[in-house]
């Protein structure tokens, strides 16, 4: 067994021979002190697990989990035409946002494919706060900046100015309430406020990447260890556990959420990725609009679908989807055991005609073929 090379076999989670210095969040030494297993995640030295993926996953579904997601990138747009710039580079309609509201969106190439997926927060007229994927931060910043020459708006690569913690799960609100007088209980999903958490100025958003209720908190890195420790200490009696990126991945997969580099990238479009709801062709001109309009009219050949294994082997990222006669018709974008659902699940691009729930597919797993069934997404929906 080659323990040293084990890791999630995704594009972002491959352990590389590191000649370059890994980037570290403000919690790096805290993670190591607490015994987390660390991996190279897109150039960042990040915890993949503390007490175990299954344990952390279950804690987040049934109580609460705390995640250091400070590797995520932040980009701020300011100026009289900040909205016009957001509208031009992303596919969702940011003009619908009110102050203190966020939306999931896509940063589009001119071909209508993904530069990245992101959260767009409207702070005020003329000020938008974007949260982007860690490994795409530089690319996104350069891309938006080059588009910005046409607009009266400044683009700041602000990742260094923010730490980000995510507290997720049914008890997240109750735990966070101990730390603030801000009206976080009244925050609606995909809304945010500026307030103090544990005496620290923060942007607190009711968003997440787990399928649970919860919050994502952005604040100055100096305060990270204090906030992390205080949350864990107070949350412990409520079942709050520190969680790594391993559980974050299985949680988002159960919730049917896309991960850049797996479900979406520069070769996939919103129509193919089942993300048509974030694409507003009628909002006016934006990068990729013509291509997306054309694809909407001509139709797509492949689409992202969820599946459940029926045979025992586990489908993993990159495994082929096979037709009855062994011919490759698609590929698995994410595949894993689902700790809460206790099934082996995955998402895959399959031909549109093979994408209806109930359709039988086969997955090539090493030297064998295993039976699976298309199921509706998401796999998991939290009880409300």
């Amino acid at each position, binding site marked *: *067994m*080659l*323990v*040293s090379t*084990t*890791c*999630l*076999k995704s594009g972002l989670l491959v352990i590389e021979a590191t000649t370059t210095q890994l980037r570290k969040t403000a919690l790096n030494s805290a993670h*190591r002190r607490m015994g987390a297993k*660390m991996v190279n995640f897109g150039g960042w030295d990040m915890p*993949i*697990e503390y007490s*175990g*993926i*299954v344990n952390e*996953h279950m804690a987040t579904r049934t109580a609460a989990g705390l995640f250091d997601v400070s590797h995520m990138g932040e980009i701020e747009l300011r100026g009289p035409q900040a909205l016009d710039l957001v509208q031009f580079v992303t596919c969702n309609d940011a003009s619908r946002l009110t102050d203190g509201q966020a939306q999931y969106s896509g940063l589009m190439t001119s071909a209508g494919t993904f530069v990245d997926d992101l959260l767009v927060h409207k702070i005020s007229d003329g000020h938008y706060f974007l949260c982007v994927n860690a490994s795409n931060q530089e690319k996104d910043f350069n891309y938006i900046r080059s588009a910005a020459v046409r607009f009266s708006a400044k683009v700041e690569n602000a990742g260094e100015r923010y730490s980000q913690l995510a507290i997720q799960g049914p008890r997240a609100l109750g735990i966070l309430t101990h730390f603030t007088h801000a009206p976080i209980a009244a925050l609606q999903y995909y809304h945010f406020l500026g307030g103090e958490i544990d005496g620290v100025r923060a942007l607190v958003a009711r968003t997440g990447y787990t399928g649970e209720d919860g919050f994502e908190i952005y604040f100055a890195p100096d305060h990270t260890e204090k906030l992390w420790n205080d949350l864990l200490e107070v949350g412990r009696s409520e079942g709050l556990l520190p969680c790594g990126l*391993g559980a974050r*991945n*299985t949680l988002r997969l159960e919730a049917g959420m896309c991960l850049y580099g797996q479900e979406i990238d520069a070769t996939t479009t919103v129509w193919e990725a089942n993300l048509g709801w974030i694409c507003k062709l009628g909002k006016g001109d934006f990068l990729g609009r013509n291509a997306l309009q054309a694809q909407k009219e001509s139709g797509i050949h492949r689409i992202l679908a969820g599946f459940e294994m029926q045979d*025992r*082997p*586990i489908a*993993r990222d990159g495994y082929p989807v096979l037709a009855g006669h062994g011919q490759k018709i698609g590929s698995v974008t994410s595949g*894993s*055991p689902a*700790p809460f659902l206790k099934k082996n699940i995955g998402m895959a691009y399959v031909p549109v005609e093979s994408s209806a729930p109930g359709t039988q597919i086969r997955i090539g797993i*090493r030297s064998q073929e295993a039976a699976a069934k298309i199921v509706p997404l998401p796999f998991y929906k939290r009880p409300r």
Partner: protein
Amino acid sequence: MYPSNYRYTKEHEWVRVEGGVATIGITDYAQHELGSVVYVELPRPGVQLKAGQSFGTVESVKAVNDIYAPVSGEVSEVNSALADTPETINKDPHGKAWLIKLKLADSSELAKLMDAPAYEAYVVDHQKGTSA
């Protein structure tokens, strides 16, 4: 921790030889690094294995790990109970969770493997390397 009558590989398998039969499993260090084992894939009896050849996989939630034969021989028995209770690998990796038994082809191969003190030292070294 590591039985003194076993021999160990750098890839964290163990082998115990009794009367020409080699019993093979993965070490406590390996199961700990893997986390909760959820699936095991093993060969059928009769398969010929060469030392160093991959003969199956042990999977946790996050990873698929190949397992390599520490010595050469023909598979004589497979621990089929692991199909329904793969978590035994986490609970008793050096005992109940043996993976396969081989008819040992060449007992001189054992000399190339580590004994328990050497493996323990190797693991300590390995941990330093990964956490540095």
